[in-house]
């Protein structure tokens, strides 16, 4: 009897504990299942950016029109997307990172506004424009990751600060641009500074009071990178002791980079959070011999403890700045007759990866831009000593300092940067906004000063030889690694994509067009020119029985730096006049949310 009682009470305690932490998780999961809302950066934890809404469909999207608009009051690159929860839309801005709560029941009237006071001295240590990738929601709070690395929790109803913590130090070149992610009862946040020699990390804070729970670095000793030498695996094999530090020379890992400024995905059943790390510091490879782990790596971590279950480094000893931070999209598909739980990732390095998200097994690694030339492919032979490594084409390696290495594809901004792709379970295709640009890259020696850029390379960019389009929007079959269709665009496609059950895919162009294409064929069905180039992510929601599609316009980001003046062909010889289209001939700065709907 007593034995049974004990068992029961233990079970009760366990159940209560599980309910306590699971509640924070379940509530948000349930909210994300409501297609009318958009409660987290990619709508759902699987990061598919797919909406079941189909009031707007391939047959009627041609009639779409601008329904209402909102000016953010800020003129810099607008990345990310708003959240919609019930009748309230939450809009964020680039620096100074204002947050607006708009009342959808009253034509977007401003319910509250949060205007953080940040030291403008953080601006010059943001490498690539003063962007911010958006908000998260959990337990009645809106979470914002500010440029000065403050993570703040705001009461969703009033905008009042509930708690605030400093995640980093701008005087050391550490800044914040990524969206925070609410995972179970925690808020996870990365940090930026790969061009400033920062030893980057992901940190988990308690959602209720902002207490730090764990911090996992991208490089360093085992306890700092939070791996278990025996249990954490890399392509099925334990990573072993000192898996990171033994791939760096001396103390170089302390200014090693591996920054975490991208997106996260979460599988509640496997209890794993997925994200990627960025480039190792410096851009001069000869200053950091070794594989530089775990930069350029896909991490699968337990969100409660922070411990890594598996890792996979995509670009060992990076020589091109191919950050690995792009989104991790979770899907369940059948490969070779077997139902698999997958994670798909379109890397800066031009390879589209499909892995088993439970074990970290590598299933597919194929080029999603035919121009990619730095690698002849990834060794997929499980018995090979180089299993999982990309074979570097010697001609496109940049290992020699003070030598200008020419014709490397993709350019440092990658075949795709942070702009997230979408996945449609209806078509089983991924929809990917891509860059189609190559580069000359010359590394040279640089010295490190805290808070100052630590780059060490110079580069020139141009479209691939013989081509003039700088971007393509593609449909990709991740089961086999093939491009299904490809729509050329004059400029790199720098917006996040949206796929819907209406058989549509939406994306924005750098000239400022919001476009809708047929999900099966890529045929353009609608376009509208918004006030400024689009680097935001298209989203959709329903209000008052009507479906809306919304996107932020405001040119900037790396596209606004590298493409504003137009690219030139460095190999055209002396006296070559002109070059390729200049973005500054199509758009200038802006800051606007445009919301589209079908006519009444």
């Amino acid at each position: 009897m007593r034995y049974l009682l004990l068992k029961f009470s233990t079970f009760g305690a366990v159940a209560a504990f599980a309910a306590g932490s699971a509640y924070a998780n379940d509530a948000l999961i349930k909210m994300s299942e409501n297609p009318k809302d958009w409660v987290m950066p990619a709508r759902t934890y699987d990061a598919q950016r797919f909406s079941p809404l189909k009031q707007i469909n391939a047959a009627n999207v041609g009639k779409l029109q601008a329904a209402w608009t909102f000016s953010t009051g800020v003129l810099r690159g607008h990345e990310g997307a708003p959240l919609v929860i019930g009748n309230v839309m939450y809009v964020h801005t680039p620096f100074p990172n204002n947050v607006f709560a708009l009342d959808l029941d009253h034509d977007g009237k401003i319910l509250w506004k949060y205007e953080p006071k940040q030291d403008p001295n953080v601006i010059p240590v943001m490498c690539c424009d003063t962007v911010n990738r958006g908000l998260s929601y959990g337990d009645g709070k809106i979470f914002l990751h500010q440029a000065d690395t403050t993570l703040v929790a705001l009461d969703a109803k009033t905008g009042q600060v509930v708690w605030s913590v400093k995640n980093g130090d701008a005087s050391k070149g550490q800044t914040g641009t990524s969206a925070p992610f609410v995972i179970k009862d925690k808020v996870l946040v990365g940090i930026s500074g790969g061009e400033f020699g920062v030893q980057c990390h992901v940190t988990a804070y308690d959602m209720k009071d902002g207490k730090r729970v764990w911090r996992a670095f991208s490089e360093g000793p085992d306890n700092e990178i939070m791996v278990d030498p025996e249990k954490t695996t890399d392509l099925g094999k334990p990573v072993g002791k000192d898996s990171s530090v033994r791939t760096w020379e001396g103390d170089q890992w302390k200014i090693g980079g591996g920054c975490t400024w991208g997106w996260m995905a979460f599988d509640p059943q496997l209890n794993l959070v997925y994200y990627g790390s960025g480039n190792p510091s410096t851009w001069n490879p000869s200053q950091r011999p070794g594989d530089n782990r775990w930069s350029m790596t896909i991490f699968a971590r337990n969100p409660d403890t922070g411990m890594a279950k598996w890792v996979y480094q995509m670009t060992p000893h990076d020589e091109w700045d191919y950050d690995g931070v792009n989104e991790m999209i979770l899907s369940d598909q059948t490969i070779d007759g077997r139902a698999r739980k997958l994670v798909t990732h379109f890397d800066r390095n031009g390879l589209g990866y499909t892995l088993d998200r439970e074990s970290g097994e590598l299933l597919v690694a194929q080029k999603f831009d035919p121009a990619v030339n730095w690698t002849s492919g990834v060794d997929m032979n499980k018995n090979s000593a180089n299993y999982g490594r990309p074979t570097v084409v010697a001609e496109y390696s940049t290992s020699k300092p003070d030598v200008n290495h020419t014709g490397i594809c993709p350019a440092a901004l990658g075949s795709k940067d942070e702009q997230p792709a979408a996945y449609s379970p209806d078509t089983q295709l991924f929809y990917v906004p891509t860059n189609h640009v190559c580069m000359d890259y010359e590394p040279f020696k640089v010295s490190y000063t805290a808070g100052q850029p630590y780059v060490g390379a110079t580069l020139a960019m141009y479209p691939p030889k013989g081509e003039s389009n700088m971007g393509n929007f593609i449909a990709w079959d991740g089961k086999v690694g093939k491009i299904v269709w490809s729509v050329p665009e004059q400029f790199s496609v720098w917006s996040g994509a949206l796929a819907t059950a209406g058989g549509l895919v939406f994306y924005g162009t750098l000239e400022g067009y919001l476009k809708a294409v047929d999900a099966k064929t890529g045929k353009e069905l609608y376009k509208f020119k918004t006030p400024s180039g689009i680097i935001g992510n298209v989203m959709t929601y329903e209000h008052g029985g009507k479906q809306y599609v919304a996107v932020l316009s405001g040119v900037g980001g790396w596209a606004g730096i590298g493409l504003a003046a137009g690219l030139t062909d460095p190999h055209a010889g002396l006296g070559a006049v002109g070059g390729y289209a200049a973005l500054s001939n199509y758009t200038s700065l802006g800051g606007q949310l445009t919301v589209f709907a079908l006519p009444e």
Partner: protein
Amino acid sequence: MKTLFGAAMAALIIALCWSSLAAADGSGDPAAVKDEDGKYFDKEGNPTYKVQADGTVDWHTYSGFRRYHSDCHVCHGPDGMGSTYAPALKDSLKTLNYSDFLAVVAGGRRNVNSAQENVMPAFGTNANVMCYLDDIFVYLRARADDAVGRGRPEKHAEKPAAASAAEDTCFGAKH
């Protein structure tokens, strides 16, 4: 007669002024009058560029192209052409002089008001910039004067021994 002469003199003076104005940028007349171990100076003593008839640029202009594209390109765009938020320095140097240029790079600049938040960092403690400041200046000066076009200069003079020595002194043991 007097009026015609006066008009002719006025036209001549205007022509002379115009021709000398056309050959001046923010630092004055860029013509190289002194050569110190492959580094060139104008008549005011400001660093300047030297481009041969066949397009060969002096070492310091070439070095400036490389160093500009390491630390300045990330905000100011390729070839001094500007970005969506930072000015085109190929235009700025048409009116910005050498000492003001040094001051801005070393000390930074803030344009923060209700319409914009543009902040340039102070590079004064950054050896990767300060040790090549004259090089970056002469490159941008050449761009402002259209003496050098966009892109990497195809031909450049050999790196003078004095330039290597200056680098070593500037970086000290670290380099």
